[in-house]
């Protein structure tokens, strides 16, 4: 009870503080440079002043937060990455040299590439197929919400859900994991899936595909609806079948949206940490960069230099997408 009361208290104070800033600062600005000043010239000057200052009052908190939480850390990580574990001594590129010789890093890089290829491809593929199929049936919207649902589930919740599916019981006992039960019913040996080197990566990736497919489906389905009817009708008249229409008429027309979906999922994949952390914590050759970074943050009291070095690598991998994103947005703005 007490906890709820104090929580409510801080919530109100926090939110109110924010409101007070915006209302207060703008009120103050209007008092400082009143529009109805003594002389008309003064009024005009005041108005110009207000125009110059007000945008920054509006933008202030946002710029401050963005700088503090995203821009500053990016720079600080770069600096940390050339320092030792406590961040005191400058050690040049030693962290990078260490990193590129580290077996675990090679493993994480290799696995990350697997994730980057497999997850966006599978999510986009399933999303596209499901979008195309559900658009044709009367209960499509219900089906879509059900497939979209995993989007709401946390990675850690999803990990528990799937860990239960992969659950393995020794030979002779009843399998309570769905996958092993199915495998056994088909007359094959049950396996401890998440400990099988190499293949276990795919069992972890499936979790993310399960979550992300709904996202891809929603966006691609909107894009499919935007395709002009005439192009499809023309193809039907020319004798194209469903599959041909899909691949030769529909897919090329929504190519741009597919690219957007693909990139967005790629970014999610690069950041993914929770699934590996919860399922294996990098054991049995499933390490990925984000988890490796996290483990260096706290391993043996923490090595911030090495952790930051891995963060910089992740950042470098994102840069091309970032540039593409900005270009895309700029092109859009010019179109307006």
């Amino acid at each position: 009870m007490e906890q709820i009361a104090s929580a409510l208290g801080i919530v109100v104070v926090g939110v109110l503080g924010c409101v007070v800033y915006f209302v207060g600062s703008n009120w103050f600005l209007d008092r400082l440079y009143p529009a109805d000043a003594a002389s008309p010239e003064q009024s005009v000057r005041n108005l110009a002043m207000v125009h110059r200052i007000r945008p920054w009052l509006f933008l202030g908190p946002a710029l401050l937060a963005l700088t503090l939480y995203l821009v500053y850390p990016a720079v600080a990580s770069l600096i940390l990455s050339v320092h030792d574990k406590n961040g005191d001594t400058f050690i040049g590129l030693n962290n990078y040299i260490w990193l590129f010789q580290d077996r675990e890093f090679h493993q994480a890089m290799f696995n990350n590439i697997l994730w980057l290829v497999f997850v966006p491809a599978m999510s986009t593929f399933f999303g596209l197929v499901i979008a195309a199929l559900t658009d044709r049936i009367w209960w499509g919207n219900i089906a879509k919400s059900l497939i979209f649902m995993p989007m709401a589930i946390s990675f850690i919740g999803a990990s528990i859900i799937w860990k239960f599916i992969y659950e393995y019981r020794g030979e002779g006992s009843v399998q309570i994991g769905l996958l092993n039960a199915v495998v056994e019913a088909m007359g094959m040996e049950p396996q401890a899936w998440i400990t099988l080197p190499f293949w276990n990566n795919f069992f972890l990736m499936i979790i993310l595909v399960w979550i992300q497919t709904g996202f891809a489906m929603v966006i691609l389905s909107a894009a499919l609806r935007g395709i002009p009817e005439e192009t499809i009708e023309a193809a039907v008249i020319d004798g194209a079948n469903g599959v041909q229409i899909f691949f030769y008429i529909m897919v090329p027309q929504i190519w741009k949206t597919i690219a957007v979906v693909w990139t967005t999922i790629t970014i999610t994949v690069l950041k993914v940490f929770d699934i590996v952390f919860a399922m294996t914590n990098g054991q049995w050759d499933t390490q990925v960069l984000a988890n490796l970074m996290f483990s260096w943050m706290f391993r043996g009291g923490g090595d911030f230099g090495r952790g930051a070095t891995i963060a910089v690598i992740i950042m470098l991998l994102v840069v091309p997408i970032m540039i593409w994103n900005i270009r895309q947005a700029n092109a859009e703005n010019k179109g307006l």
Partner: protein
Amino acid sequence: MISGSKTKSPLMWVVHLSVVLLVLLWTMPTIGLFVSSIRDKDQLAVSGWWTALFSSEQNLIGRSLGPDSQIEKDGVFVIRGNILEETEKAGKITAFGWRAQEPTAYEPGAVAEMRKGQTLKVEADGSYELTSATKWKGSRGKRLFHTVASPPIFTLDNYREVLTAEGIGRSFINSLTVTIPSTIIPILIAAFAAYALAWMQFPGRAILVAVVVGLLVVPLQMSLIPLLQLYNKIGAFMGVPAKTYLGIWLAHTGFGLPLAIYLLRNYISELPKEIIESARVDGASHFDIFIKIILPLSFPALASFAIFQFLWVWNDLLVAMVFLGNGEDQLVLTGRLREMLGSRGGNWEILTASAFITIIVPLGVFFSLQRYLVRGLLAGSVKGG
């Protein structure tokens, strides 16, 4: 061949079936979790959740009453009792045995010949009868191997247990304390910023927009170490703990802002120009316009971002683990779940119930506000696509 209405029906069947299959694939995992969370824990441990509606069989070992309860009748020494009462199980005996090598050798009601002319008979209801020509010796009863088929049991005990004993209840409140301000504060800040970027004239506007778009993809892992150090320094300087709710709200605000500003700016900049211009002509300041016109008009966009941010913060593990710590009073639901995965790894009744509690809020939000969520996704991703 023209694929007109004639070939439509068989093809449509394939479509319907494929979608049914896909929906099953996508919902089955969550259904399994839910079903498991309301099953009796003993049944959960020995049978798959898909058998939840059928009775489950369990091989058990019990012991008969000891020799002190034997009765002599017509020169035969008899021990009687009920094995289900001993092992406190409900259900029916489907098989029994007296040797570990063959625990299910006999059908209920059959008479098993044991050594030295002893016999054992177990009925379906669990009552047994041990007979012997000579007096039963020793201090303990005989081992009775038996298979019990129990009817399905559904219970809320698992939930009761995790809510009281496992600290899930407390974490639930912690999660709310983190999530609510972390949703409201960035919306306020982002709405003002988005309006400025969309409708106010000032130098550097284009660059700022580009910066926001660029920051959209910055992986937040990047920020953790420098911020953690900064928090530690500030905490030490001010003499307060480094890991506070205020700290995590601000962190979530910072990380959520690029998406918030981006989505809201897209929306606000497409509001009709005339409304804003005529208000300007009437002498309204930007602040008045924002409060009286823009905010009410942007409700759909605000709602869709609010849902995103809420789901994102509620489901976050990483930020909470770094900035809030793993102390008992501050652990959020995702962190608690992670901890249980380590400590209660095999107790599926605990794990499934806990996991279901953590996903129930996002699922509720999701199903009730799905329309806004989809709208937000579309505004952010396929604009012009």
